[in-house]
């Protein structure tokens, strides 16, 4: 770990008024050992999630967002493997745990919801059965008690008439209802961290807003932290307090939502915003980021964004940039970035 990075972490922690992070990921490396070579899907990712906050994780498809999430729960399947780094959840080092101990963490301390509500519920069981199963796994309650808890959870996620819905099967519910049921299941054991992997991507826009509001409400009610993975910057703006931007298995920028939206410093983040349509900028052509995401089997030398970057200098091709603090809680992994954004001028 470089000294720069170490300072960065210290500073960020200091800015949290000494609050210990709920989740601290340090230098996480998850590689996939395929026949064609090693794909470094997550390569040295560090971040933290503080109690009660929502962290937005943004990036293109294949940038390592989901693999990071799965790595936290240690659910990466072969040929993928966590090859390095530490994951500390609530003071517990997860990478050192036995599988049996890890099982007690999943669901109870950290739970996860997924992109496709239609495939994340088992089609052959009623939703009530699936939620009760999750409850009885971690809590010593009788079947009837678990059922009552399940009905209460369904009520909390605003499913109308939960006592009746509990006997229904996933195919009888709409997509939004399924995602609500999924949230109820994930939260049934009151985890302190909820990882939401693109929870609204498969839903239509009005339902998206409802689900996001619901997540916000539940976060406040239950006092949990949410790690929200998405490729939709609008969603991040709506509910995240801090944002982490990932590119090709690396964190390129971390900052409060406000500063990311008002003063993005990494060329990639800026590119992301330029490629979005914006109100009040009529008839202006969208500017896609040139080039394409590098093949994870064959990452470019130096900065991974360097082949697509308009600001690329010699140093970018030779040396990999580390996260640097460039403002209050704002760190950027770029050689040319300056704290006042002057490098874009």
């Amino acid at each position, binding site marked *: 770990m470089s000294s720069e990075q170490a300072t960065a972490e210290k500073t960020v922690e200091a800015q949290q008024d000494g609050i210990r992070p709920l989740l601290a990921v340090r230098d996480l490396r998850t590689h996939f050992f395929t026949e064609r070579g090693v794909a470094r899907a997550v390569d040295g990712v560090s971040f933290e999630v503080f109690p009660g906050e929502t962290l937005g994780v943004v990036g293109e498809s294949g940038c390592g967002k989901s693999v990071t999430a799965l790595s936290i*729960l240690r*659910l990466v399947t072969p040929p993928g493997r966590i090859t390095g780094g530490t994951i500390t959840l609530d003071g517990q080092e997860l990478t050192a745990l036995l599988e049996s101990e890890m099982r007690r963490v999943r*669901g109870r301390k950290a739970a996860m919801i997924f*992109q496709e509500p239609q*495939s994340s519920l*088992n*089609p*052959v069981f009623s939703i009530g059965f699936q939620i009760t*199963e999750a409850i009885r796994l971690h809590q010593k309650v009788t079947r009837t008690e678990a059922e009552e808890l399940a009905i209460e959870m369904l009520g909390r996620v605003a499913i109308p008439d939960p006592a009746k819905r509990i006997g229904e099967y996933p195919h009888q519910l709409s997509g939004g209802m399924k995602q609500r049921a999924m949230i109820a299941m*994930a939260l049934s054991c009151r985890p302190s961290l909820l990882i939401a992997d693109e929870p609204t991507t498969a839903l239509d826009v009005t339902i998206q807003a409802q689900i996001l509001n619901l997540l916000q409400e539940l976060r406040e009610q239950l006092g949990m932290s949410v790690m929200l993975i998405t490729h939709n910057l609008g969603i991040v703006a709506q509910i995240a307090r801090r944002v982490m931007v990932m590119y090709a298995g690396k964190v390129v920028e971390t900052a409060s939502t406000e500063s990311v939206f008002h003063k993005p410093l990494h060329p990639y983040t800026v590119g992301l915003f330029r490629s979005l349509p914006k109100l009040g900028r009529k008839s202006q052509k969208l500017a896609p980021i040139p080039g394409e995401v590098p093949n994870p089997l064959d990452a470019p030398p130096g900065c991974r964004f360097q082949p697509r970057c308009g600001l690329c200098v010699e140093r970018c091709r030779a040396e990999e940039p580390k996260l640097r603090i460039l403002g209050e809680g704002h760190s950027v992994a770029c050689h040319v970035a300056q704290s006042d954004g002057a490098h874009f001028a």
Partner: protein
Amino acid sequence: MASLIALAVFYLAAVFADFLSPYPYDNEERSHPNAPPTPLRFRRADGSARFLPFVYRTSYTFDENRGRVYVEDRSAEYPIRFFIPGEEHRILGLIPTRIHFFGVDAPARIYLLGADYLGRDRFSRILYGSRISLSIGLVGVSVSFVIGMLVGGIAGYFGGAVDNALMRVVEMVMLIPRFYLLLALRAALPEDISSVRMYFYIVFILSFLGWAGTARVVRGMVLSLREQDYVIAARALGRGHLWVIVRHILPNTLSYAIVSVTLAVPSGILGESALSLLGLGIQEPYASWGNMLAKAMNVAEIQFNPEVLWPGAFIFAVVMCFQFLGDGLRDAFDPMMEASGVKS
């Protein structure tokens, strides 16, 4: 659907075999070897009609070729009576009773499908034999199915080296022709054993034969099912691997499994019949369709007593029923058919 009803009738008949059959399976009547089916008479000797059929007492003489000829003694009528007292038995193994569903008073005997070489009623023996022949297929296939599902589930779920190792074992089992494997396994077991133990050995042999095919297909299905989000969702909630396989993945293969069980049962029945036919399975005096059919291996026997083929007819009927049922179930479960709105 018709085949389902037919199978239900077969299995009910097996359960109530001792009640439905006029005689126990080992009731010998040495004066009636190889008797043909007793003719049911509706018309008295004087020409008047009776509503319920009756039979005459029969006895045999020899014709000029020293062949047995059965003649009826028309002096006394023996009407077929229902709920007639006979040998004591227990319905469902619980209720002791002497009542049989039908029969005739001694000394006349009724042989609906003739008698075998010891004068035992073939119809009664087929009923008793169905207990073994029908249940052994079902039990054997269920056992092999549990094994097959588990092995397939584990191989498909874990993939990689586990998958490789298990599938090579499966291929080794599938490599050996079924019938020789059947014989080899039988040869590996002791020779003189009671029929009850033999029953369990046959179940074991049959399940050893059947699991490999199931395992292979289930593995294929699991390979695609494990990519479903609910698998990782269950893991994310803290479930262990085995639980996820058994409770989340395998239930999704059940529609296939049910069809496959139905289609596999006949091979179990045929396997038992084949062993018994060769005298390696259920031994006399216990009846099974296979060992009854063993008498039909002699062409001359078929020529003089074509009734020995009756157990074969029953095997044929049951196997066909299972095939039709399996076909019907497959159509009913087929999602393609459902999607296009075609209902069977």
